[in-house]
């Protein structure tokens, strides 16, 4: 059967559509011209200006503190939630499941707006603490679902085998279950970390005036800052994302390989 070229051309078009704007911006960050436009020679001065900007460093520190703490809490709560959803069938789990899925489908602005009202109604001071709470709310479910997917692929006869061979329940969990679902917990954590680093809308609503994160800095620079310094910052963030995506692809590839070695086949078929 003759295959149409149209789908392939659409794919190429979409990839060009995705990457051309990012490429233009990256090139622009090295362009020695104040307002973009034509090429006026290579320069690193925007990068130097960026690195000298103390605000950027403070924002970066805030962003990382929140991302690391929120990710750790998400990994703990999300993994526990996934175990509960996987093992038990009760009315409680029905409600639990609805609550875990809901943050995935609610627009961020509603989450930010409702949290802001909640904190205002309780007269809580806005700042790092409230940002942290918001970030755990929107990323916990991603960890829970990633781990849940891993648990559904997990061969439960392995646990039975461990118990038959004399392991206590806790030893079986620690030695068999946790190592095998660890890639799921890590992948979920990585997702939570990325979401936290990137979040603007929820942070914008619950940050108050004092605490700024990097996305807030970017937003205020777009609104009324220097676009050239922003080009440089964007190019750096792009490079970090590409590196992160590449590494996570390698980690995921290794997880799949481990899966294949341990897996007894046919598990995905149920």
């Amino acid at each position, binding site marked *: 059967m003759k295959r149409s070229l149209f789908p392939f051309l659409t794919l190429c078009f979409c990839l060009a559509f995705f*990457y051309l704007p990012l490429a233009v911006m990256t090139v622009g960050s090295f362009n020695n011209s104040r307002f973009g436009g034509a090429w006026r020679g290579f320069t690193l001065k925007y990068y130097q200006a960026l690195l000298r900007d103390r605000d950027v460093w403070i924002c970066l520190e805030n962003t990382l503190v929140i991302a690391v703490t929120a990710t750790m809490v998400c990994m703990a*709560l999300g993994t526990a939630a996934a175990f*509960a959803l996987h093992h038990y069938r*009760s009315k409680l789990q029905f409600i639990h499941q609805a609550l875990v899925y809901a943050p995935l489908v609610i*627009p961020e602005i*509603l989450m930010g707006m409702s949290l802001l*009202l909640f904190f205002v*109604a309780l007269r809580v001071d806005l700042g790092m603490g409230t940002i942290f709470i918001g970030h755990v709310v929107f990323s916990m479910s991603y960890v829970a679902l990633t781990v849940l997917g891993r648990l559904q692929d997990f061969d439960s006869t392995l646990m039975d085998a461990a118990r038959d061979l004399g392991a206590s329940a806790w030893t079986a969990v620690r030695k068999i279950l946790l190592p095998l679902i660890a890639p799921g917990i890590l992948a979920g954590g990585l997702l939570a970390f990325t979401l936290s680093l990137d979040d603007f809308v929820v942070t914008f609503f619950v940050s108050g005036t004092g605490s700024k994160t990097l*996305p807030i800095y970017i937003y205020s620079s777009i609104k009324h800052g220097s676009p050239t310094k922003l080009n440089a910052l964007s190019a750096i963030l792009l490079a970090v994302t590409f590196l992160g995506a590449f590494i996570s*692809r390698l980690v995921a590839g290794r997880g799949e390989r481990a899966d294949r070695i341990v897996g007894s086949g046919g598990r995905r078929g149920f």
Partner: protein
Amino acid sequence: MSARTGGNGRNGRGRFNELLLTLPSLAWLGVFFLVPTLIVFAIAFRPADPYGGIGDGWTFETIRRMASPNYPAIIWRTVWLSAVATLICLTLAVPVGYCLSRIDRRWRQWVLLLVVIPFWTNFLVRVFAWKSLLATNGSFRLALVWLGALSGDQPILFTPAAILLVLVYTYLPFAILPVYAAAEKFDFSLLEAARDLGASSGRAFFRVFLPGISRGLATAGIMVLVPSLGSYVIPDLVGGATSEMLGNKIAQYVYTERNLPRASALSAILTLVVAALLLLFLWWSLRRNRFGGDRKGELFT
């Protein structure tokens, strides 16, 4: 289904373990997600106080004001921009998903990675990239002028067209992934069968392939439509004063006009619209599962 180990809460220990595993996430989401969402509905009925806080007592004033002509106009603009963006994303996602599912396995992982990376890139950075491209001396606008699609002094930044373009750019990966996931499970020999039985390739595509990936299409639609309806940053940064969306108006009442009850009322409307869409999606997929189709019903996660 794999055997479910552990009790179903029949014995006390099982119940205790269940609570131990469930309570942390249940409490966190209950207190910081469910309660705040309900509070939004309550505050829509409270008066505003002059200091930007929430006053005492209850009133229908805010809800009554929602009938004034500029709110329905904003709601309508939000709905049509989101609907058109969703349609464009789906139209692009179908051939791309099809192509991805037919690519050689060795290459596929890397092409998929290329599709996912923009979705991992900082959202504001992507919007900013477009803002510079669409500006008066931006390369994209100049290219459009050169192609004759735009006259020399016609702006594109701060128009609904700019919002639409950036919405599609931002949410296209959300549409491609579920369509690809569905296309990958599609049995392509069915298309050959349809051709052998005399269907034209167009007919085979519309009557066999599209129904075969309908679940992926519906998921993709929801994944684009819902965040578009709630978008705030995109209309705020590339849209103008005449192309505001619901998200802008909410933020404006919170930050500029300091009227929290009015922001709540608009949020409540948005919540209801989104909830209605999600229920429709749930109803559709339950009905579809009951009448055959694949029973596994995997959600795109």
